[in-house]
């Protein structure tokens, strides 16, 4: 009984860490315009819209976070193998991983911008200095929280994978969940604030991103402020639920029915989410209504 209570405590802590990590991850990537919305930041100068948005194209979020987390975990593992206290080891590992992240961010911005010289997009050194540090701070939160949760899973819950392997697994999952949830909110709602609300961006409008802020010219810190309102927390809850429910069903129900307990609970959770998803979809169809009359169906 005691071990189950302990397991649930660790599960809850891991879920909470994952929530923080997901929120920080998405805010970081939106400040850097990483992932798919990056295509618009890249496209805008080619359409004549010179901007002051940070363009940090390291890779898609899943591979990039696969590296940052695996690196933080690998260095933390190395320091722990040298008999350094795990907390200090994780902090040092995350710190060095963030240094690598920062260097990659600067080279990506310089490289992409220099390659757009033909369209007159200048390199803004102040953008480089102020945005890189902010993304590094967010990335540190994300990396530290995720490496800590990997360490908890390995050391306290007894998962067989060593720390770097868990890092690669949860790093890619973190990037996948964060980019899937957060990207549309930044890509559509923020970059194309000037387009109609409640509709996709017409393909003809591509590249015409919003470049001016409430006062002055928009930079990526304004974008971080915006995505921290919904995209970031939603990504956090998404990744937190993934980690929490995955651990919860295993810790509590794996012993029941020689493993089948966890499987049945997993199926039930999937069905619950399916019902929620269907409810959201139908709710939207009812309340937002069709854009055109159904009669035009045949012509489109």
């Amino acid at each position, binding site marked *: 009984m005691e071990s189950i209570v302990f397991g649930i405590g660790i599960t809850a802590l891991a879920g909470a860490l994952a929530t923080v990590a997901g929120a920080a991850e998405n805010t970081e990537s939106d400040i850097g315009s990483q992932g798919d919305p990056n295509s618009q930041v890249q496209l805008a100068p080619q359409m004549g819209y010179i901007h002051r948005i940070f363009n940090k194209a390291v890779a898609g979020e899943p591979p990039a976070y696969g590296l940052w987390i695996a690196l933080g975990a690998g260095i933390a593992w190395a320091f722990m193998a040298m008999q350094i206290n795990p907390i200090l080891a994780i902090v040092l590992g995350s710190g060095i991983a963030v240094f690598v992240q920062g260097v*990659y961010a600067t080279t990506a911005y310089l490289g992409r911008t220099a*390659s757009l010289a033909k369209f007159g*997009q200048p390199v803004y050194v102040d953008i480089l200095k102020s945005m890189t540090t902010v993304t590094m701070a967010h990335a540190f939160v994300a990396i530290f929280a995720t490496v800590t949760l990997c360490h908890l899973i390995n050391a306290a819950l007894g998962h067989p994978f060593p720390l770097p*392997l868990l890092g690669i697994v949860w790093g890619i999952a973190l990037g996948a969940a964060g980019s899937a949830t957060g990207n549309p909110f930044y890509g559509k709602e923020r970059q194309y604030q000037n387009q109609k609300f409640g509709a996709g961006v017409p393909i003809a409008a591509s590249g015409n991103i919003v470049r001016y802020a409430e006062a002055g010219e928009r930079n990526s810190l304004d974008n971080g402020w915006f995505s921290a309102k919904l995209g970031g927390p939603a990504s956090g809850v998404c990744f937190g639920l993934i980690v929490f429910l995955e651990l919860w069903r295993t810790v509590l129900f794996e012993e029941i029915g020689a493993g089948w307990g966890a499987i049945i609970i997993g199926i039930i959770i999937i069905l619950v989410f399916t019902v929620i998803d269907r409810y959201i979809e139908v709710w939207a169809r009812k309340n937002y209504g069709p854009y055109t009359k159904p009669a035009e169906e045949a012509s489109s």
Partner: protein
Amino acid sequence: MTVKVEKIEGGIPHTTIMIAGLIASLVFLYLTYANVIMGTEYFAFFGGLATVAALIWGSHTIKHLCSYGIGTGVPSAGMIAFGSGVIAMLFATKYGIAAPIVAVVLAAVIGLILGYLANNVLNMRIPVMIQSLVEMAIIGALVLMGYAAMMTGSFELTSLTTGNVQILGLSLPSYQASFLGGALIATAFMLGAIAIQHPFNACLGPNWTQDRMLMLAAECGFLSMITAAIMSMPLISMSAALVSLFVAIIGWYYTYAKYIELSKRDAAAWLESKPIPDVEGH
């Protein structure tokens, strides 16, 4: 069937880079063998230099392949390179001193088959697909072997699987505290997979220049080498790890400064706290 999106103009031809990268990488890998001959670990840093050479070659191969527009992101090319390379590399470590050669040959075979699958079975019809996947598998295997040699001092399976744990001043052999047992290979995998795709992914665009991208590839290689040197600390002697770290930091600083210089040269303008310039019509 496919449209070539960007042309490679001028600069060093791809074949030259390929041959130079392959030879340099192999030579550096064999220089780490001096560790075994002389009974030290100070030559481990040559493993890191081997990864830098292979990554420079790899970034150009990615440029070669991805200039055709392969339909999915540039990073995926790095993933397939290392996914196939890791298998060839670990198998090759069984063969002692012949390991680097075995890795190259085996990776070439795996890459050839993957290339054939992508090009013919999946009907992608990209002229350089087969050659590129062969090169990428070789690069993946060489980079991982370089990191293995750098972190453990040797590229033989026994040294990858055995480590030492210091308990109360006593040194005990342990399988858990090793390059493979601790799964540091997973970190090496991601370090290489991102470093190989980043130079082209970061420098793509109409004003792509070859020297800038290759400089960035070297920078990524040395940056990864810094972290690999830190991870080698529990596996080889501290002084040997510090030698690697020192070499890596010098190399990284030089290439990073050079890369910023080249970006300054290529950029349209280099502005500090300036507004968006006026462009006609907007």
